[in-house]
């Protein structure tokens, strides 16, 4: 097991090296001279040249990449924001908790509602409830998050005056963003729960459990649901990446100061170090979550470490 974890961690580092290279290259080829972005259009040629030299903009591509990498590895230095002059990592860490809270609330809602709906649906297969849940799941995966957010604002803030339309901090302000962000995952989890429950629900051991006179709810939760867990864990793990992407859109709609909004705002201000650092940061979190999910499997199913 330890060897497996070690191997996976090593691989994770290689992948993140690749990500850093891609992100660096993307912003290397993007238009605009950083020195000009920092100093503004009115800067004198001498000042520009001095800053270019100071930022190392005249160095060859690979030298710049390795300097960037060196900064990250040895000093956790993701560069400095053109806009605020603060360290990129500080900028990211200042807003990251908001994104985590948002994504975590969304996934909690998604798991609770999704699993419940999926179980009911599977137990009452082909009933009206089942059909309704499946229609909900289908529509849920087709609705753009940002549109759902706008519609929720129209309904709950503008028409009913129940919830604040934007902002971040209070519980009331979190409700709509978390539900909007979680809807797609709820739908996916409901579908996955239903189908993996249906796969085991007719197995002989379930019939045996019933024949032994166990209560139906015990049979479902203990014998069926538990054995349907692995595919459900997979979907929950996969959803996390979706959620990080979706959080960006949710943050835009509800004006939440999070990592997604930081990245998007930085793009429009051409604050490339922040964009670079932000993408790398998200990729790192995403990969770590995937690693944890894989390790969870290995715990649930020891066969995996052997292959």
């Amino acid at each position, binding site marked *: 097991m330890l060897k497996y974890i070690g191997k996976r961690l090593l691989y994770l580092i290689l*992948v993140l090296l690749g*990500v850093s290279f891609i992100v660096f290259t*993307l912003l290397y080829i993007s238009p605009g001279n950083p020195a000009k972005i920092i100093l503004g259009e009115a800067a004198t040629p001498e000042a520009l040249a001095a800053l270019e030299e100071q930022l190392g903009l005249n160095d060859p591509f690979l030298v710049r990449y390795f300097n960037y990498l060196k900064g990250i590895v040895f000093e956790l230095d993701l560069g400095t924001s053109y806009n605020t002059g603060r360290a990129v990592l500080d900028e990211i860490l200042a807003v990251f908790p908001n994104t985590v809270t948002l994504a975590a609330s969304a996934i909690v809602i998604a798991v609770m509602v999704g699993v419940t709906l999926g179980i009911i649906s599977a137990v009452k297969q082909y009933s009206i409830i089942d059909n309704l849940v499946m229609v909900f799941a289908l529509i849920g995966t087709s609705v*753009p998050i*940002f*549109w759902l957010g*706008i519609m929720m604002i129209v309904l709950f803030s503008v028409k009913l005056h129940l919830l604040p339309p934007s902002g971040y901090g209070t519980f009331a302000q979190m409700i709509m963003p978390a539900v909007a962000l979680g809807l797609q995952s709820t739908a996916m989890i409901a579908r996955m729960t239903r189908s993996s429950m249906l796969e085991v629900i007719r197995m002989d051991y379930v019939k045996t459990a019933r024949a032994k006179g166990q209560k139906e709810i015990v049979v479902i939760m203990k014998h069926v649901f538990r054995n349907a867990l692995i595919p459900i864990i997979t979907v929950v793990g996969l959803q996390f990446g979706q959620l990080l992407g979706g959080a960006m859109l949710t943050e835009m709609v509800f004006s939440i100061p999070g990592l997604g909004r930081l990245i998007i705002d930085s793009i429009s201000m051409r604050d490339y170090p922040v*964009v670079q650092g932000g993408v790398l940061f998200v990729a790192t979190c995403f990969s770590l979550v995937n690693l944890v999910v894989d390790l969870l499997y290995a715990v649930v199913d020891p066969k995996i470490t052997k292959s």
Partner: protein
Amino acid sequence: MNKENKKTNSQLASVWRSLRRNRMAMLGLVILVLLALMAIFADFIAPYAYDAQDLLNARQAPSAEHIFGTDEFGRDIFSRIIYGSRLSLVVGFISVGIALVLGGFLGAVAGFYGGRLDDIIMRCMDILLAIPQVLLAIAIIASLGNGLVNLMVAVGIATIPSYARIVRASVMTIRGEEYIEAARASGTNDAKIIIKHILPNCLAPVIVQVTLGIANAILSCAALSFIGLGITPPSPEWGAMLSGARNYVLTYPYMSVFPGLAIIVTVLALNLLGDGLRDALDPKLKR
């Protein structure tokens, strides 16, 4: 060759039969055909031009003249949505096309040759997969700049790994078959074997992925346009329309309703068809 054609024909027929029995999938297909017709004949269907401004009638609620109302410049929202279907369908198809060609090529090569080459290609795919799709597309378009073409390229590149993985997996199951050995023994070159004998046999999973992938691409493009990267106003792209309408959420909410509904209907139709195709093409899943 003739025999092979007949075989694929009868396979197609059986897929079509099972698809036709699936009412939800047929609903999706019908909606898609209607959408395609709407896009093609937009000039005849739309009551107004998509860029015809009428500032005296700006921000009107839905009425007999403007059934979806008008936007902040007095443009007819219904007409803009009809013209927008062109953009969404084109963007969806082409970005998936880009992903399919590049990803399919990489996956086929990786699966066919295996070994070192396979390792290198798939590790590169893992690197792309480490960045959430929307974010990767955002990063790409941030460096390329806004615009229709860049949007399709960004979404296309961001989705390459899914196609590479699917094609690789099916190539690997097929490459050991006897008829491939036979083709190789008779001196057919690799490119020909891959294109003529292997790829046609990976079609089933690819078709499903393409259908669902177009839905996904349309959503991503709308999302990017919504946050101001991608297609920008005054183009009648649905996401861009929502982006403009957002400023009027508090006063003219109906401006946001219809572009979003258009996205949902299109994506839902593609998802329904994709699910139906998966059931029809994968006999294992039949109940």
